[in-house]
């Protein structure tokens, strides 16, 4: 039977692009459907209006809101639409997806993350599960990402460092801001092991991409103007397209995956840019739209054999949504504490701090409780976005600041020191009250049900978040920072999404099999962060990339191996 394409990938971000590249290289025809536009490197600027104040890279929430449910004080759930709210669950809506706008803080998971249930036992109120694969299964793919996507860094041994098959990163570390060596010294004195944070940012030109232009903390939320950042678009899709066997179709919003009475997928139906419905079919379908959108697509793709949604025999599609748990903190290192030359170096904002602590990746601290999973602490510049920073100074204790007093506050905040931030990552434990469903009433502008997202969290997230953030604050104080605060929050970080289609060995308790194939369907795979039953205590992107390469190798094998030699 002939098909339009060998493989149809829905979503062009970190989950879809490794599949597109691997299959196209192996000689198979690939179609990538992306709902957003195809912006190129020349379209991305350090433009705070575009990225952060007008949300140009995301869908308009008036057209496509989410309904979110937040826990109230009495244990009930308050629903609100994200239209005109501070909540926005959309991320990158364009070719390359959210990977265009990531900061690229790249940490691997660690062996322990693959078997939290066996290692630490059950946690009451959390749906803990071991992964059906081990770190050793994924390690070669983490390594492949280092070269394919481009990861810069330097391996430094520390007590929770994960094993690796290569001695060091293929790209040397990026230029460092002087705060990095202050943190190294302070950390050693405290008995900790700060190490360089590896980044998905090229430190030297490669593959037609330029190296970093050094914008300091500007990477997050903005697209890269030199192609140094390892977005799925520049690092993978552009290469896939060059093979001549991968077509990327932007402005193609998939309405549903169609299945027949026998439960076979017959095609994908999508809206083109003009709003017309089109259809394509393929031998293999790969869904990678990010956790919430992937669940939405499967749930609305009902068919004669799948009345509850595609791949949803277990009823688990949309369940066990993961964000990233953790804490945060901040402080300011005043120039007045340093000599003139040192202060001048501290004031340059281009280079990166790039320091992390994983001494507490597992917390073995009797004063805190039994041995348990901890997390990662990253030290970063405060994002330089000046409007947002200034707007945070407009109110003190419920009273607005204005006039000359406001101007003096702004001068102090912007000119007198380096604003520093702690980002602590711990597991967002999978719980019953964190999930995605289709709203029964509200439709988006395409006439499709919007997502209803319940955002419940486990109190353990907060406990560990506070613990880690306090350790970060201890470091900031040790380098002499002022106004140091740290805290944890149960609020979901909307740019760090995983879960909703967990993989596993048992079809009754998982949506996907260990190859990320949907349990009830022979030719449907999910390769974004949805597969994760637990998320680990690091940002997700590296793991999503690595797992998608793993699934892609499986697909090549399944389709009969590479059709081409010398690749």
């Amino acid at each position, binding site marked *: 039977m002939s098909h339009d394409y060998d493989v149809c990938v829905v979503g062009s971000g970190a989950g879809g692009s490794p599949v597109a590249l691997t299959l196209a290289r192996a000689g198979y025809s690939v179609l990538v459907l992306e709902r957003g536009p195809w912006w190129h490197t020349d379209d991305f600027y350090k433009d705070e209006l575009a990225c952060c104040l007008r949300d140009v890279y995301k869908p308009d929430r008036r057209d496509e809101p989410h309904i979110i449910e937040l826990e109230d004080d009495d244990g009930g759930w308050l629903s609100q639409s994200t239209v005109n709210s501070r909540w926005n669950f959309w991320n990158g809506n364009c070719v390359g997806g959210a990977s265009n706008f990531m900061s690229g803080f790249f940490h691997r998971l660690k062996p322990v993350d693959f078997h939290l249930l066996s290692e630490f036992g059950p946690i009451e109120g959390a749906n803990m599960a071991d992964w059906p694969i081990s770190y050793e299964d994924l390690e070669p793919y983490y390594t492949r990402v280092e070269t394919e996507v481009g990861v810069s860094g330097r391996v430094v041994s520390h007590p929770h460092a994960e094993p690796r098959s290569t001695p060091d990163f293929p790209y040397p570390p990026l230029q460092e801001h002087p705060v990095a060596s202050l943190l190294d010294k302070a950390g050693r004195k405290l008995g900790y092991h700060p190490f360089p944070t590896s980044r998905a940012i090229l430190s030297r030109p490669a593959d037609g991409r330029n190296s970093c232009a050094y914008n300091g903390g500007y990477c997050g939320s903005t697209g890269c103007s030199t192609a140094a950042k390892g977005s799925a678009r520049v690092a993978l899709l552009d290469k896939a397209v060059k093979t001549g066997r991968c077509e990327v179709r932007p402005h193609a919003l998939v309405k549903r995956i169609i299945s027949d009475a026998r439960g076979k997928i017959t095609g994908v139906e999508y809206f083109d840019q003009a709003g017309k419905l089109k259809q394509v079919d393929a031998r293999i379908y790969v869904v990678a739209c990010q956790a919430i959108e992937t669940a939405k697509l499967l749930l609305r793709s009902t068919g004669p054999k799948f009345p509850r949604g595609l791949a949803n025999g277990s009823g688990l599609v949309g369940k066990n949504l993961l964000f990233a748990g953790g804490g945060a903190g901040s402080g300011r290192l005043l120039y007045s504490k340093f000599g003139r030359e040192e202060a001048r170096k501290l004031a340059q904002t281009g280079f990166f701090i790039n320091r992390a602590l994983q001494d507490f990746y597992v917390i073995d601290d009797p004063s805190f409780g039994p041995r348990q999973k901890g997390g990662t602490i990253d030290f970063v510049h405060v994002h330089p976005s000046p409007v947002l920073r200034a707007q945070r100074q407009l109110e003190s204790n419920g009273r607005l600041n204005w006039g000359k007093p406001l101007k003096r506050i*702004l001068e102090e905040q912007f000119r007198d020191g380096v604003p520093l931030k702690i980002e602590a990552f711990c597991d967002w434990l999978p719980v019953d009250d964190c999930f995605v469903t289709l709203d029964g009433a509200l439709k988006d502008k395409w006439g499709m049900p919007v997502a209803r997202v319940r955002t419940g969290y486990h109190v353990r997230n907060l406990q560990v978040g506070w613990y880690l953030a306090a350790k970060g604050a201890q470091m900031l104080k040790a380098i002499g920072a002022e106004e140091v605060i740290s805290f944890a929050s149960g609020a979901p970080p909307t740019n760090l999404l995983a879960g909703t289609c967990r993989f596993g060995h048992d079809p009754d308790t998982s949506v996907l099999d260990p190859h990320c194939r949907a349990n009830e369907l022979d030719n449907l795979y999910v390769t974004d962060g949805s597969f994760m039953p637990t998320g680990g205590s690091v940002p997700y992107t590296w793991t999503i990339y690595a797992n998608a390469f793993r699934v892609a190798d499986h697909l090549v094998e399944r389709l009969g191996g590479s059709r081409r030699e010398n690749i």
Partner: protein
Amino acid sequence: MKRRRFLRWSMGGVLMGSAGLAGARAWVPDFSAIRLESTGLDADQWALIAAVQEHLLPSEAAAPGARDVNATSWLQWVLSDPAVESSQCRFFRQGAAALAELSRKEYGKAFVSLGAREKEALLRKYEARADGHGWLQELLNYIMEAMLTDPVYGGNPGQVGWKWLNHQPGYKRPPADKRYFLL
């Protein structure tokens, strides 16, 4: 209504030789051609807003104020965007009307005629009201935008706001033909 307003904007663009007029996003701001009526606020209300902005961010010899960063025309530009909901214009109009009324009630004259101390007292009084607090905060938010966004959008002329606060812009800065509404 919005469509008509949009067409007038386009016409203005053609007459002034602006680029990029194809498609629904071809809304090219031009401060010299601001059509105040498209915002729904009249000239007196805009004069009041300008006076409030100057009070909220006064000019100083070594530090720019609202006037130096084009804060008023910035807000006019924001509110004349066809994509902005009419509720946003109504919000600023109603706030301006409420403050004008409060000024007449408290001092018997227009806000623009008040001295600096009277303005301060009146704005603090207005701030104590829920509607006043929100209105002033939004004004401040847009003053910060005018002061600290890329000069290509018309605020922050000559990077005056960035220079004042030692902000180093990132690479690359947006050129005129890649402003966000043209992407």
